[in-house]
């Protein structure tokens, strides 16, 4: 016997309700499983390069982290904000544009931090001085359009100076400027690159430049060497200064401007 119309309607609504509930629970189960599968892959990457802003002397620190998202749903609208303070002022404050990590694959989240290395910036002090930096990192993200995550990571970071105790002593003779350089690498990365020494005369005119031998100082290592900078005829460095910079792939970092006695 065929059920009455109202009974069929009420039963259809009941069945639909059950189906919706089961579908929602299956969806949530897949979301929970997919979220649990998200994991970082590889080690965080750091890369220095020249600053992007014309006319502003600075470097860019690019932090990258590969993430594996083998689940069914994308991790979208990932917005990373970071602030870094050192005693006496803000070093970095930045908010990244939203990034998306597609479902079923791997992706790279990136945080680009501009670091002002102009002569007036106290960031330069961090090249040769250890410090305790205050850090706040916010990460907002949306998963499967249903969950929103807000992560705050605050606290202090110990900064190890890459050129701790940097000492540059230029000694001039008639044909050569001997440059004694010593420091300890308190940072956590290998220092590779070359040092560029530029001799500037008292009038402010550069009269000699020399690329010093390549550096490769591991974390915890030290450098204590003397490099000769040949002086061309007519180049009298006395009363001038020696500019020392570290050059690496894609960047030049001014280290020190040392008067030449």
């Amino acid at each position: 016997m065929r059920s009455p119309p109202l009974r069929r309607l009420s039963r259809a609504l009941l069945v639909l309700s059950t189906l919706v509930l089961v579908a929602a629970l299956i969806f949530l189960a897949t979301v929970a499983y997919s979220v649990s599968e998200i994991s970082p892959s590889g080690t965080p990457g750091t890369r220095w390069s020249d600053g992007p802003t014309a006319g502003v002397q600075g470097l860019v620190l690019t932090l990258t982290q590969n993430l594996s998202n083998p689940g069914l749903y994308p991790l979208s609208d990932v917005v990373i904000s970071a602030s870094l303070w050192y005693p006496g002022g803000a070093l970095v404050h930045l908010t990244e544009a939203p990034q998306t990590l597609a479902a079923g694959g791997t992706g790279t989240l990136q945080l680009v931090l501009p670091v002002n290395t102009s002569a007036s910036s106290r960031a330069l002090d961090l090249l040769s001085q250890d410090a305790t930096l205050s850090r706040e990192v916010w990460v907002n993200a949306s998963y499967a359009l249903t969950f929103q995550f807000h992560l705050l990571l605050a606290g202090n970071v110990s900064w190890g100076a890459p050129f701790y105790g940097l000492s540059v002593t230029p000694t001039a003779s008639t044909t050569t400027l001997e440059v004694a350089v010593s420091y300890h690498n308190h940072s956590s990365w290998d220092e590779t690159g070359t040092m560029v020494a530029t001799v500037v005369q008292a009038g402010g005119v550069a009269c000699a430049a020399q690329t010093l031998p390549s550096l490769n100082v591991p974390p915890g290592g030290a450098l204590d060497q003397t490099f000769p900078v040949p002086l061309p005829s007519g180049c009298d460095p006395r009363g001038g200064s020696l500019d020392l910079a570290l050059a690496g792939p894609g960047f030049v970092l001014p280290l020190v401007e040392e008067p030449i006695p």
Partner: protein
Amino acid sequence: MTIRAPYATPTHRGVTYPGARIPSKGILRARAMAYFVLMFVLLALLPFAVVVSVVALGYVTLAVPPDVILGVGTLQALLEGMTVSAKPNPSYGPTVMLASLVALGYLAIFLTSSAVTVSVGTSSGPLVLRVLYTPVILILMVAPALRFLSGLVTTLEDHWHPGERLPSDYPA
């Protein structure tokens, strides 16, 4: 010796429905009790145990207290049991509507404060993770809303055509 039939007389408000085979009150009560126990475990005990154990970790804060989950879950389970025993009666539709409303209210509690906060102290400072799940609650609210409509239609049917549904609900 009297043998009690396991099924009641298929009548409703004095109208006989020969095609219906309505279980006796005893069977209905037994089914209702079994359903209540099942729902009590699923809607009250299990969520309460999960929430209590999560809160006991010390670094997870839930917006809804465990006691509320146990209380509302028990009420929900009671109403679910009542829907089983009330099914042959005109009170079935309103009971379903009431159970659905309580379920909606239960979810609405989570909707107003749908967040889980995890605070962990790390060696370099605090880590705070806040998870918002408002859309999840909205999705889950669709099911009781549909069930409420189903109860409303049943109530109207019982009002306009008393006992009409019994032969299809309890076919002989």
